């Protein structure tokens, strides 16, 4: 489904991601773990096209998408749910969803809204409410629902648990599983490693822009590598 080959990204002279290889099989949940500044978000941005890699290739379903700008990647089925939610506060919940369906047709938008409400009933209750009045958890639900509006085959989630209460986190992660069940491949960037490893099939642990370890989520969880790489030892 998705393959990154030797991706290097830098901000000015500082390399954030170095020679990274990553693969996500169809309908898998792949989580990318690591401490702050390990290069997790940059990796997602590179896949979405928001950051141009200095070298390396990105393949989606056998097609080289490295040179494509973000809108074309969205059209090919990649959706990024950005870190910090980035919902549009002045818009209502519905308007936020409509923006998410920017590239979709009118019927697809209507279907998408119905699907979003089915996935997150709370959003249905608040559909005409201004997004600024939502709680943190509801805003995260909205952000995820909004990125699903383009009917992505590949959903990129950047820190969906950020700033949420544990019970809300679990609700969100439960929904991520439901999204996969509907047929999407999910790449999940998380600080909350335990929670992410519980729903993921495969995990990458990054340290200083490189893959420190990769393997099935069970194996990574058992290895204790996560703790070590977080502590930088």
């Amino acid at each position: 489904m998705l393959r990154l080959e030797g991706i290097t990204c830098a901000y000015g002279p500082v390399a954030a991601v170095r020679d990274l290889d990553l693969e996500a099989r169809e309908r898998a949940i792949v989580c990318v773990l690591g401490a702050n500044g390990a290069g997790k978000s940059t990796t997602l941005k590179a896949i979405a096209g928001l950051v141009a890699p200095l070298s390396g290739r990105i393949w989606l379903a056998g097609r080289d998408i490295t040179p494509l700008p973000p809108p074309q990647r969205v059209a090919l089925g990649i959706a990024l749910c950005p870190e910090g939610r980035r919902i549009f506060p002045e818009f209502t919940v519905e308007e936020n969803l409509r923006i998410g369906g920017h590239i979709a047709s009118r019927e697809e938008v209507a279907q998408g809204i119905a699907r979003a409400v089915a996935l997150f009933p709370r959003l249905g209750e608040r559909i005409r409410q201004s997004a600024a009045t939502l709680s943190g958890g509801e805003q995260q639900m909205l952000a995820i629902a909004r990125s699903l509006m383009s009917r992505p085959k590949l959903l990129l989630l950047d820190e969906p648990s950020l700033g949420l209460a544990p019970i809300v986190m679990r609700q969100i992660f439960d929904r991520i599983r439901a999204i996969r069940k509907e047929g999407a491949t999910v790449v999940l960037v998380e600080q909350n490693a335990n929670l992410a490893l519980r729903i993921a099939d495969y995990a990458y642990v990054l340290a200083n822009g490189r893959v420190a370890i990769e393997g099935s989520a069970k194996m990574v969880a058992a290895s204790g590598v996560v703790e070590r790489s977080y502590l930088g030892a």
Partner: protein
Amino acid sequence: MIRARRRGLPWPLLAFGFAVAFPAAYGGNTAIMSVATQCLIYAVAAASLNLLMGYGGQVSLGHAGFLAAGAYTAAVVAIHFRLPLVPEILAAGLVAAAIGFVLGLPTGRLHGLYLVILTLGFGVAVPQIALNWTGLTNGWAGLAMPPTTLWGLDLTSQPTLYYCVLAVSWLCLLAMLSLVATRSGRIFMAVRDSEAAAMAMGVNVWRAKVKVFTTSAFFCGIAGDLLAHWTGLVAPTSFPFDLSLLFFSMVIVGGMGSIWGSLTGAVLLVVIADQAASVGGLSTAIIGGAVVLTLLVAPEGLASLPRVVSWRLRRMLEREAPGEIGRFRNRDQRVRKERRA
């Protein structure tokens, strides 16, 4: 647009009614009519800048340049081609829009201060170009607008000019208002709020920015056309850098992201400037004071004032009357008053 729907009174309608009716009282006074006309013209210019700043999330310190482009186009078209008013207005808007398009092209790469500098340079350059391109602009002396008529009405006399400007400016304001309520408007605001999020949703951010730049310039060009009719003379000195700053102030005072706020801001600042002109040299200082005052009292501009005031009032009332405490205090006061009587 969301806020306007919620508010009780149809303010825009009331304002329009007032604008239509008020020449009945002052129609004979050309000085007052002239200021009223100026208010409307500047309101269109300020609203066009607000489209760019408040909805598009970009900055321009050179909108007087677009105004000049529209005004010069109006004069050239009126003198050389003798076009009727409506095509002339459209020509002024389109020429300004073309310039706005070109100026908007680098916005994909230029952000923040760099964009400010670009627009500032543009605003400062336009009068210089007008001064030196004598073949087209007649240089320092400027171009005199030939007398224009619309359906037999003489546009150089008041209140005819006022009503014509009223009609055009209101159409422009309504057009901008409906634009921001459309899908395009939502995309402008999405780009304003978060470029990264908009991009991640497949929005072509650069195209949205160029679009908002072009549209803003279009409406400002129309304001320039009206200005040419109002002043009767289009000269390089009519478009100083101060004018761009004045539009900027109007947007801030009126409230970013509110078209009606820009109308309010324009009326307020034009009237202040007109009144302060008699004080001599102080008008700029007074306008600066008005901007600072607005930022202190209502940081979101005059448009937010009803919201801010009602919020403050509600908080005051809630503090008065949470349960019994407030009521007791009121009764105490009443008892004291009765005793005194």
